[in-house]
C-alpha cells in the first residue's frame, strides 16, 4: 500500500491536531517547570524525621548552647538554645557554622604523616606507633599548645605532657591569658567574671565585648535585655578604644583612645574617683593613690591620650553615681594587651566596690579537675607562649624536642608570624590535632585529625568573661564523617601505649567524671527556670538533684554556679601600674589597630564557608582586604580611597586597599583579622592578608608579659 504525499501530509497534520486534544503535549510542556527545577545536578533536599538535639558550640569561643535540627539523624541547622545561659537563643555566625563545617573542604579526612613536602595518609594504629616512638625519644623535652580555653581536654593534654617531661604547656594567648596574668599580679584568686546582666553602667575599656570578647553572645543578650526597642535604655555603656568597632557602634558613647592608652584612661578615671573620696582597704591602696595622683590628672591624660578632661570627669561621675557600675578591660582585637591595663581597669572596680557584687566582677573559682597530674587552668594560663617561642627562635630557650598542638594554629594566630614560624621550624617533631588543614597542621610531622564538636564528647567550662561558673556538654550527635577521632581518646590511647597512667581509658569517662565532680560542688545548679544572674541578684539558687545532672546536660541545660573564690590578698598591684602605665607623649608613628570578628572564624576554623557572604566589600573585595583610616590620616599619609598599599612591620609585608572610615582615630590604621590564610580551603585561602603577622611582640614593663597591643607599621 502506498502513501502518497497528500495522505502523508494529512496524516501529519491530523495527527498533530489530534494530539493537541490529548493531555500529552500539555502535560509534557507543563512538566517543563518541574524538570527545570529538578535538573539532576541540583541537590535534592534530604527527607526524613525531623528532631532537635542540644549541644554546645565549641568552634565559637562564646560557648553558646546550641539546638541542632536533624533530619533522619543528620544535623542540618545549628540554632541558639534559648534555655542556655550563654546563648539565650542567640548564636554567632561562627557557632551557626558548626553543622556545615562538618563538610568543610578543609577537613582533614584521615591521619597523615609528613612525607617530604607532602602528606601521606596512615592508619590510626600506625600514627599511634609513630607518635609513641617519637615522644618516647623526646622525653623530658615535650611541649604542648592548646587553643581550647575551656575544655577538660587540657587536663589530659597537660597531664600527659607532664608525664612525658614537660618543656612547657601553653595556652594560645587571648584575653584569658592576659586577665589571668593581671589577677595573679594583683594577688587575686579565680577568674574574673563580669555580671553584665545586673550591671547598669558599664565602662568598656578596649574589650570588643559584643563581638569577640568572652561570652559575646551572652554579653549582647544581657545588653539588649535592658534596652527595650524604642524606649529609654535601662543601662548605659561607654566604649573606650581606637575605633568605633561593632561594640562601640551600639554603646551610648564612644571615647576614642589608643589601645596603648587604655591603662592611662583607667587611671585618669581613678583620679576623679579618688578625688571624690573613693577609698579601699585592699593592699597597695596608698601606693596606688600616689601613682594616680602623681601622673594621671586630667591634663596628663589629655596630653597623653587626647581624651578631654570633661569626658573623663563625666564617666567617673556616671560610674560613681550608678547603682551597679562595672568596668571591663580587654584588647580591641582579643589579644596582645598587657596585664597593666587590666589591673588599672580592675582597680576602678575595686574603688567602686564592685568585686563579688551583683552587677560587678565575680572572682570565679576553677571547677574541680579530674585528671591526676594535670595543670590547673590558672597554671596553664600563666605560660607565655609568644615569649617562649621567641626564646626558642633566638636560642635563649632550648627548643623542645616534640610539640603537641591541640585546637591551635600558632603558625597563623600568633603575632610576629615570621619569628614564630622560625621557632616552630626548630622543633623537630610536631603533632597537630587539628580538624582542618590549617597553617600549623601544614607544618607538622603528624596530623591526627580531631573529630568535630558535633562528632565528639567535649565540654565548655566557664569561658572567660562569663559572670558565673558554667559548664555545658558537647556531645556527638553524628558519627565521624571522616576517619577522625576525638583527640582525648587518642591521647589516652597514646598514654596507654607509653605505659603512662592517666586514670582514664577514654575521654567520655573523663567528661563523666568531671560531671560527677560538679554534682558535688555546693551552690551549683542546673539553669532552667532560674538563671545564674537572677541568683546573683538575690533569687535563691535551686537545689541540684545530683543523679540527673548528666541527663540535664545532655538535654542542653547548663550547670551553673554563682560563686566566688575566697580572696586573701587581692590588691592594686600599684608597682606594676607605676612601671607599665605611663601618661607619656602620644605616639607619632602609624599604629596598627586590628579588629577581629567571629564571622571570619578563628585561627582554628578559618573562614566558615557560609560566612564569607557576611563579610562586606569594605573589608574584602576580590582577594584583597582593606585597612581603614580616617580622612585626616589618609591625607597625612597621602592615601587615597581604594589605593593599593603595602604595610610593613615585624619583618613582614602585607598588601591592603584603603578604605576611608571616619570612626578610626587619627594616626591609626584599623585592619581586620581572620584573613590571609595560606592553608584551609578556597573560602579562606588567599583571601586578603594576615595583619596580625605585622605585630611585633614587646615585653611589658612591670609584668614581663608579652604584648602587641599597639604595633607600629610602615606604609608604602
Amino acid at each position: 500500500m502506498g502513501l502518497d504525499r497528500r495522505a502523508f501530509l494529512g496524516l501529519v497534520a491530523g495527527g498533530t491536531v489530534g494530539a493537541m486534544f490529548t493531555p500529552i503535549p500539555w502535560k509534557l510542556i507543563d512538566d517543563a517547570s518541574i524538570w527545570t527545577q529538578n535538573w539532576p545536578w541540583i541537590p535534592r533536599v534530604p527527607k526524613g524525621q525531623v528532631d532537635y538535639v542540644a549541644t554546645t558550640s565549641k568552634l565559637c569561643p562564646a560557648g553558646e548552647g546550641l539546638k541542632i535540627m536533624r533530619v533522619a539523624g543528620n544535623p542540618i541547622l545549628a540554632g541558639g538554645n534559648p534555655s542556655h545561659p550563654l546563648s539565650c537563643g542567640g548564636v554567632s555566625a561562627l557557632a551557626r557554622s558548626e553543622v556545615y563545617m562538618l563538610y568543610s573542604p578543609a577537613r582533614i579526612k584521615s591521619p597523615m604523616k609528613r612525607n617530604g613536602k607532602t602528606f601521606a595518609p596512615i592508619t590510626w594504629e600506625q600514627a599511634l606507633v609513630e607518635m609513641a616512638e617519637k615522644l618516647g625519644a623526646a622525653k623530658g623535652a615535650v611541649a604542648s599548645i592548646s587553643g581550647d580555653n575551656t575544655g577538660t581536654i587540657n587536663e589530659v593534654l597537660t597531664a600527659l605532657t607532664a608525664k612525658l617531661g614537660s618543656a612547657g604547656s601553653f595556652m594560645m594567648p587571648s584575653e584569658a591569658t592576659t586577665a589571668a596574668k593581671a589577677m595573679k599580679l594583683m594577688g587575686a584568686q579565680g577568674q574574673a567574671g563580669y555580671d553584665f546582666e545586673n550591671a547598669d553602667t558599664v565602662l568598656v575599656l578596649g574589650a570588643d565585648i559584643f563581638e569577640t570578647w568572652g561570652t559575646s553572645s551572652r554579653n549582647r543578650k544581657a545588653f539588649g535585655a535592658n534596652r527595650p526597642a524604642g524606649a529609654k535604655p535601662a543601662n548605659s555603656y561607654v566604649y573606650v578604644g581606637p575605633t568605633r568597632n561593632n561594640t562601640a557602634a551600639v554603646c551610648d558613647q564612644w571615647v576614642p583612645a589608643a589601645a596603648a592608652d587604655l591603662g592611662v584612661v583607667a587611671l585618669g578615671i581613678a583620679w576623679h574617683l579618688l578625688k571624690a573620696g573613693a577609698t579601699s582597704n585592699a593592699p597597695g591602696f596608698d601606693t596606688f593613690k600616689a601613682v594616680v595622683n602623681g601622673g594621671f590628672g586630667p591634663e596628663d591624660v589629655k596630653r597623653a591620650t587626647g581624651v578631654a578632661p570633661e569626658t573623663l570627669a563625666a564617666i567617673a561621675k556616671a560610674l560613681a553615681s550608678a547603682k551597679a557600675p562595672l568596668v571591663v578591660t580587654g584588647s580591641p582585637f582579643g589579644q596582645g594587651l598587657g596585664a597593666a591595663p587590666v589591673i588599672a581597669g580592675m582597680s576602678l572596680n575595686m574603688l567602686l566596690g564592685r568585686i563579688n557584687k551583683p552587677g560587678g566582677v565575680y572572682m570565679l573559682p576553677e571547677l574541680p579537675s579530674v585528671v591526676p597530674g594535670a595543670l590547673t587552668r590558672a597554671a596553664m594560663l600563666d605560660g607565655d607562649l609568644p615569649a617562649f617561642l621567641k626564646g626558642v627562635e633566638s636560642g635563649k630557650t632550648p627548643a623542645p624536642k616534640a610539640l603537641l598542638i591541640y585546637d591551635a594554629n600558632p603558625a597563623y594566630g600568633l603575632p610576629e608570624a615570621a619569628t614564630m614560624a622560625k621557632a616552630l621550624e626548630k622543633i623537630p617533631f610536631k603533632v597537630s590535632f587539628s580538624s582542618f588543614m590549617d597553617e600549623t597542621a601544614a607544618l607538622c610531622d603528624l596530623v591526627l585529625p580531631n573529630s568535630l564538636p558535633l562528632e565528639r564528647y567535649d565540654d565548655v567550662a566557664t569561658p572567660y568573661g562569663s559572670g558565673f561558673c558554667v559548664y555545658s556538654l558537647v556531645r556527638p550527635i553524628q558519627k565521624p564523617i571522616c576517619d577522625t577521632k576525638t583527640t582525648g581518646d587518642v591521647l589516652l590511647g597514646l598514654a596507654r601505649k607509653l605505659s603512662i597512667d592517666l586514670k582514664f581509658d577514654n575521654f567520655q569517662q573523663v567528661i563523666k567524671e568531671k560531671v560527677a565532680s560538679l554534682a558535688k560542688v555546693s551552690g551549683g545548679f542546673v539553669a532552667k527556670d532560674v538563671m545564674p544572674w537572677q541568683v546573683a541578684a538575690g533569687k535563691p539558687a535551686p537545689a541540684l538533684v545530683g543523679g540527673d545532672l548528666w541527663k540535664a546536660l545532655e538535654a542542653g541545660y547548663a550547670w551553673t554556679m554563682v560563686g566566688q573564690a575566697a580572696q586573701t590578698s587581692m590588691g592594686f598591684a600599684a608597682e606594676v601600674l607605676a612601671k607599665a602605665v605611663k601618661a607619656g607623649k602620644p605616639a607619632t608613628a602609624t599604629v596598627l589597630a586590628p579588629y577581629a570578628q567571629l564571622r571570619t572564624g578563628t585561627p582554628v576554623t578559618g573562614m566558615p564557608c557560609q560566612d564569607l557572604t557576611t563579610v562586606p566589600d569594605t573589608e574584602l573585595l576580590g582577594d584583597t582586604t582593606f585597612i581603614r583610616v580616617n580622612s585626616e590620616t589618609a591625607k597625612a599619609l597621602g592615601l587615597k580611597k581604594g589605593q593599593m598599599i603595602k604595610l610593613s612591620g615585624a619583618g613582614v609585608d602585607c598588601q591592603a586597599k584603603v578604605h576611608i572610615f571616619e570612626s578610626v582615630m587619627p594616626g591609626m590604621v584599623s585592619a581586620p583579622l581572620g584573613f590571609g590564610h595560606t592553608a584551609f580551603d578556597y573560602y579562606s585561602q588567599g583571601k586578603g592578608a594576615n595583619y596580625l603577622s605585622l605585630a611585633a611582640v614587646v615585653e611589658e614593663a612591670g609584668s614581663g608579659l608579652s604584648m602587641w597591643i599597639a604595633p607600629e607599621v610602615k606604609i608604602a
Partner: protein
Amino acid sequence: MSGHKMEFPITWGMVIDIDKCTGCGACMASCQTENNVEPQREASNKLRATSWMLVYELTNDKAFPNHDIAYLPRPCQQCGNPPCVSVCPVIATDKNENGGIVSQVYPRCIGCRYCVAACPYHVRYFGWYDPIWPEGMEKTLSPMTSVRPRGVVEKCTFCHHRWTQAKDAARVAGKDPDNLDDGAYVTSCVQNCPSGALAFGDIKNPKHKVHELVKSPYAFRLLERLGTDTQVYYISRREWVRKLGDNYLKSE
C-alpha cells in the same frame, strides 16, 4: 503612586532595633543555612552574591570624631503595596495570602528579572549559576526549603515554612492556627540574633509585641514616601538614622 495596597487580617512584620544591631552578620549566616543558599566562593562580589538578609553599614557622613555608624539588617520588606508583584509576567511572585508575605514560586519563575528591577530594596537575587555545595555538604540542606536551580529569582520569604510549622503545631495542640501566640512563629534571623535586635510577630495582633513596637515614635520604614507600605519597621533613637530611611529634599 501605582499598584494597590493589600490588607490581610494577619500581617506578619519584623521590627528591627537598629540601636541594638552590632552588625555581626549572624542573621545573614542564619538565613543562608535555613534557606539553602549555597556557600558562595566569590561572595565578596556583592553585586553577585545572594544574601536574602543583608546588613548595611550606615554613616552620618561626618568626619572624625563626630562620625557615627549604624547597622541596618535588610530582609524582604514584604511590601503591602509590592512594586515587584504586579510586574511579574507569570505570577511567580504574589501577595495573595493571609499574613501578607510576598511569595516567590521558583518553579514558576522564568527569570526575567523584572521584579529585580522593580524592587528598590535590592531584596531580589537571581541565580547566576547553578548552586554548588562543597562535596557532602548537601547533606546539611534543610528539607523546609527547596533548592533553587539557576535562572530564577529568590528572596527572603520570612521563613514561610516556619509559619506552616507553627500552624501545624497549633492545630496539634488544639489551638487556633490563625491566632498564634507571640513567638510561636519567628524567623530564623530573628531567633538567632545574639543582640535581640530583631522582633517578629503579627502587627495586627494586639497580643504580639510588634503591635506596640511599630507605633513607637522612633519607628520608621524604608522609602515610605514611595508608597511601598512595607511590613518591616526599623527603630532608632538617632534622628540621622531615621532620616536615612528615606530621601528628603533640603527643604524638608
